[in-house]
């Protein structure tokens, strides 16, 4: 069942268009993550769903009902803010109870729901405290508890982990994942710029850029089959290496010539009209391996190598103007600076994009 439907949603401030017509269907119980660089409009989109920003064009339906002109409290949503947005003068209990008190719920019902939420989030012993007496992680849990108490159809998270330190971020991320598992009927929409959060939490990821959807898909779909250069470089860390190339032979399998003169064979079909046209060749740092012998994709001097313990990163300069080629090899394999190394990759892991940046699908 469709929980949420965005039809040609637009947002403009005066003459400046921020969101250029977004179409998206979100299923009930789905965990959808909006991800994109800052300024791409992901938070604006979430705030429009919440009702905190007016919708300039298009229709938004929640549970089959158009909610464009319905106030936030009546949309069946709850929102968790980046800054927690707890009411500083109220105890944890009152923070969670506030919405229900406004809605004139009975005392017993309020108490039942607050205690149930506190129980899920291990906040029971803090119910009498003020937010300022809590740690960052506890505050965010209270904010989540306040959302749970509203018993919403759709949960909205606006970068909820950004204000937490690294360790807490991981712990809270797992808690959110568990929370979603425990509420299978509740739809969750989560905004983040952190792709690790997106990859680990999402059923589906919506990649946004400059107010447009670049691609919608499961995390693995986005990783293995990016629709375009933007998604290819946004998903994955370090980002996918892109090398200018020229299509040498189009067909069921394609042969391209890379900068540096080497040829690459790809299991990707291209149209005969592409013969001789420029293209972009992509390969992820983790798919590259050190080549033994004469079969390699490119050769370059290691400008810098970073040993991280579990992996080692090589930065190869000189092949692409301005940007180094990054290679990620497992374990600790130190290489001397300036040493010339040849790299290759499994042909099934190579990507090819046309001159406009659109992906040739495998």
């Amino acid at each position: 069942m469709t929980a949420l439907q965005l039809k040609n949603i637009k947002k403009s401030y005066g003459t400046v268009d921020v969101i250029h017509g977004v179409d998206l269907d979100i299923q009930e119980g789905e965990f959808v993550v909006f991800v994109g660089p800052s300024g791409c409009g992901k938070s604006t989109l979430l705030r429009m769903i919440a009702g905190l920003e007016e919708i300039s064009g298009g229709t938004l339906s929640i549970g089959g009902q158009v909610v464009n002109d319905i106030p936030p409290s009546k949309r069946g949503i709850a929102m968790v803010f980046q800054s927690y947005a707890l009411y500083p003068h109220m105890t944890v209990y009152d923070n969670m109870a506030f919405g229900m008190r406004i809605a004139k719920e009975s005392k017993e019902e309020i108490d039942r729901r607050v205690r149930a939420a506190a129980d899920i989030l291990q906040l029971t012993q803090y119910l009498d405290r003020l937010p300022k007496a809590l740690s960052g992680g506890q505050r965010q849990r209270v904010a989540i508890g306040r959302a749970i108490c509203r018993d919403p159809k759709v949960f909205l998270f606006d970068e909820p982990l950004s204000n937490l330190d690294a360790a807490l971020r991981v712990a809270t991320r797992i808690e959110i994942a568990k929370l979603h598992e425990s509420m299978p009927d509740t739809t969750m929409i989560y905004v983040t710029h952190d792709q690790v959060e997106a990859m680990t939490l999402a059923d589906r990821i919506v990649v946004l850029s400059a107010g447009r959807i670049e691609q919608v898909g499961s995390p693995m779909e986005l990783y293995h089959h990016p629709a375009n250069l933007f998604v290819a470089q946004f998903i994955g860390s370090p980002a996918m290496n892109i090398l200018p190339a020229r299509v040498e032979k189009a067909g069921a399998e394609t042969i391209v010539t890379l900068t540096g003169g080497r040829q690459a064979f790809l299991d990707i079909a291209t149209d005969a009209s592409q013969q001789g046209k420029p293209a972009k060749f992509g390969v992820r740092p983790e798919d590259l391996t050190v080549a033994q012998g004469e079969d390699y994709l490119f050769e370059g001097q290691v400008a810098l190598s970073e040993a991280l313990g579990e992996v080692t990163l090589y930065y190869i300069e000189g092949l692409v103007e301005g940007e180094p080629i990054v290679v990620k090899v497992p374990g600790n394999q130190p290489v001397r600076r300036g040493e010339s190394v040849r790299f290759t990759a499994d042909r099934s892991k190579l990507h090819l994009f046309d001159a406009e940046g659109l992906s040739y699908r495998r």
Partner: protein
Amino acid sequence: MEQLAGALVTVVIGVLGCAAYFFGSNFLLDAAFPSRGRDPLTAARNMRRANAIRPWLFLGPALLVLGIYLVYPVFESLRLSLHDRSGRNFVGLSNYVWMANNPGFRESMFNNMLWLLFVPALSTFLGLVIAALTDRIWWGNIAKSLIFMPMAISFVGASVIWKFIYDYRAAGSEQIGILNAIVVYFGGEPQAWITIPFWNNFFLMIILVWIQTGFAMVILSAALRGIPDETIEAAVIDGANGFQIFFKIMIPQIWGTIAVVWTTITILVLKVFDIVLAMTNGQWNTQVLANLMFDWMFRGGGDFGRGAAIAMVIMVLVIPIMVWNIRRASAEMEGR
């Protein structure tokens, strides 16, 4: 013209004098403890000594002036309040006994309490409402400037303005006071407003409210802007309406600032003097403590003992609020 020139010369001499004092004293200090051209050990010791003394050179004049004009008068007032009208013969507490039985003093106390209840409450309330409303309209800043302007007018100046508002002309003649003009326009009898006992107190209080609302508005407006938007958005999602957001989310978050504004105006009200002096001089049952003190001290022969006793009462009333206010303000500061 002569006075203007005199004032100008005074200002120039004052500013130059201050500059000369700071340059001169620092020069002398550096000359007494030279740090240049000495062996490192002496230089370090001299520098340390000079740095220990330097703050006092800057603080010195202010401390001296505060001592002469604030600390000394407190003790002198206390002494005077225990002496007779000439300030020479010790009379114990008899000035205070007289005060307790004096109807004029009781009337002043009563009026001061009225001022105390009415002015801070109304100023703070109006300031808060105006601050909240002007944040939402495009001409809010113009409105704020207009409301803030009376702050720049002296109390006596404000009283002169309001004297015109309350001005009374006999029935049948042209009313130049706007209040009477309105009353007459609607067919009423013109009134000599400031001579109507009890209510005239409120006509006087309105003047101070008019002045102080601007102050309350500016401070509270800043506090309202300091409230994080997210808490308000969270309340919107929780379903709170405008009133609920204002009273349950915004007001509690700026409660500390409201208290500081309230007490600051309260302290001002306890000392209210100029408005009463200029408007009624305490006639028609509008007497207040400060004006009563002034009357006894400098008019009707000048009874320094009784005047000082009344001054002590005002001080005792102000001190607790002052202490609380300062504590509150510094707590607010730390909270930021």
